[in-house]
């Protein structure tokens, strides 16, 4: 048995601020090695920064999660695959992927997102007003982390925010590793049906929101299909709120526990963007999202990977690789960590990454300026971290001020 075949995947974090301990062992001793998956199958893990970037940017690794051989990270996943169903953008390969991504990329350019800045600032201010008006301790997740990105993505897409409880509850079921397969698919089906109905309504008289504009543009070039837009809308809605919400909570906690780092951004808010990059690297909340299926023999880090074998490109391991980052386990907001892979790498790199950056920047600047006495109100050992979810985070973060 090799070093890593002892290991089962996914591996749990034992410290909220560090990757699973086995990552370091794998990265140093056998950087491309084998792990057991929940369904008894196995896959390669790739753990060094350079190799992770190679895998994620090489077309010989497919992202098609509906392929029967794609590595299954939760039990029952393989059995519930429906290869004929509409693929999410993150599960597409060329030639399908490029045009589908480009169709919405125009909505996420740096310039386009800058135009949203005043509205995002307004939303952040409103939520902080509500937090301050509420009882102490207040829950930062409920008051700020979840509503801010949810409101932003709802307004962008043209999804009524009044429905947020419905899609947030179902999202939690989808990303929880312990959700039974039937329940996961029911939750998925519920939000899928919701999005399809919403889009059908918008088709009648397309409004000036992202979904409405997509209907108009895709109709004009003759490529409009409701099922495809439903899958895109759903991905943007789910990915747009759950990820950023967890980054807001985790980073706020990390700032509160590293007061000297917090003092640096309070003294000079121009440092916040670099602090955001460091937080993204430090937590890498979507670590397990970068699975791939090898479709042509390829050598990575000196190891031959054969067509048909599953590969897990460990983003969190890459982001703590001392070959890429000096003293990687140290939180250093000034390190200039922009080459991290917290948003993935290659053609599937997160579409909403610059929206996330802007939201995080505005939240931290505003929160610590307006609530300088913010403190965590629950012991670190009692805080409910999302150890059981495919997107890491916090269920709750009680705070006082």
């Amino acid at each position, binding site marked *: 048995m090799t070093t890593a075949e002892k290991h089962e995947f996914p591996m749990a974090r034992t410290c909220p601020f560090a990757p699973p301990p086995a990552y370091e062992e794998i990265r140093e001793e056998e950087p491309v090695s084998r792990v057991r998956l929940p369904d008894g199958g196995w896959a390669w893990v790739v753990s060094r920064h350079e190799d992770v970037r190679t895998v994620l*940017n090489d077309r010989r690794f497919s992202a098609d999660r509906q392929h029967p051989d794609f590595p299954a990270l939760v039990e029952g996943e393989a059995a519930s695959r429906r290869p004929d169903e509409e693929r999410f953008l993150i599960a597409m390969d060329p030639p399908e992927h490029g045009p589908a*991504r*480009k*169709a919405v*990329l*125009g909505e*996420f*350019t*740096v*310039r*386009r997102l800058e135009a949203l800045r005043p509205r995002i600032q307004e939303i952040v201010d409103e939520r902080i007003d509500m937090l301050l008006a509420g009882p102490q301790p207040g829950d930062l997740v409920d008051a700020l982390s979840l509503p801010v990105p949810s409101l932003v993505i709802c307004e962008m897409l043209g999804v009524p925010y009044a429905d947020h409880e419905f899609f947030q509850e179902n999202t939690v079921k989808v990303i929880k590793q312990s959700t039974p397969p039937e329940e996961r698919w029911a939750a998925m089906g519920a939000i899928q049906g919701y999005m399809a109905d919403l889009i059908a309504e918008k088709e009648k008289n397309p409004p000036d929101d992202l979904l409405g504009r997509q209907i108009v543009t895709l109709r004009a070039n003759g490529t409009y299909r409701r099922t495809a837009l439903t899958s895109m809308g759903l991905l943007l809605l789910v990915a747009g709120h759950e990820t950023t919400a967890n980054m807001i909570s985790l980073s706020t906690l990390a700032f509160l526990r590293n007061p000297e780092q917090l003092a640096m951004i309070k003294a000079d808010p121009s440092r916040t963007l670099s602090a955001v990059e460091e937080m993204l690297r430090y937590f890498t909340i979507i670590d397990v999202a970068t699975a791939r299926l090898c479709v042509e023999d390829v050598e990575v880090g000196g190891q031959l990977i054969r067509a048909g074998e599953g590969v897990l490109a460990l983003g969190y391991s890459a982001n703590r690789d001392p070959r890429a980052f000096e003293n990687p386990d140290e939180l250093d907001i000034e390190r200039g960590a*922009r*080459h991290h892979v917290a*948003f*993935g*790498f*290659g*053609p*599937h*790199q*997160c579409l909403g*990454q*610059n929206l996330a*950056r802007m939201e995080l920047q505005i939240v931290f600047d505003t929160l610590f300026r307006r609530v300088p006495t913010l403190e965590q109100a629950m012991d670190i050992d009692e805080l409910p971290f999302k150890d059981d979810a495919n997107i890491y985070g916090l269920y709750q973060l009680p705070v006082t001020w």
Partner: protein
Amino acid sequence: MKIIVDTSRCVGAGQCVLTEPALFDQSEDDGTIIVLNETPEGELVEKAREAAHVCPGQALSLEE
């Protein structure tokens, strides 16, 4: 230094624009890279190197 771009590899992530808006822009339609200045000099040389380093599609290369 000359900036070389392979637009077929561009994934529209906008990391080049975030690195240096004086050198790079994005197409309004599909977010792909537009180079504003192919032959940077002075301080912009280092910015071009950083942009190439963080480009997720590895669409940018430099002829030094």
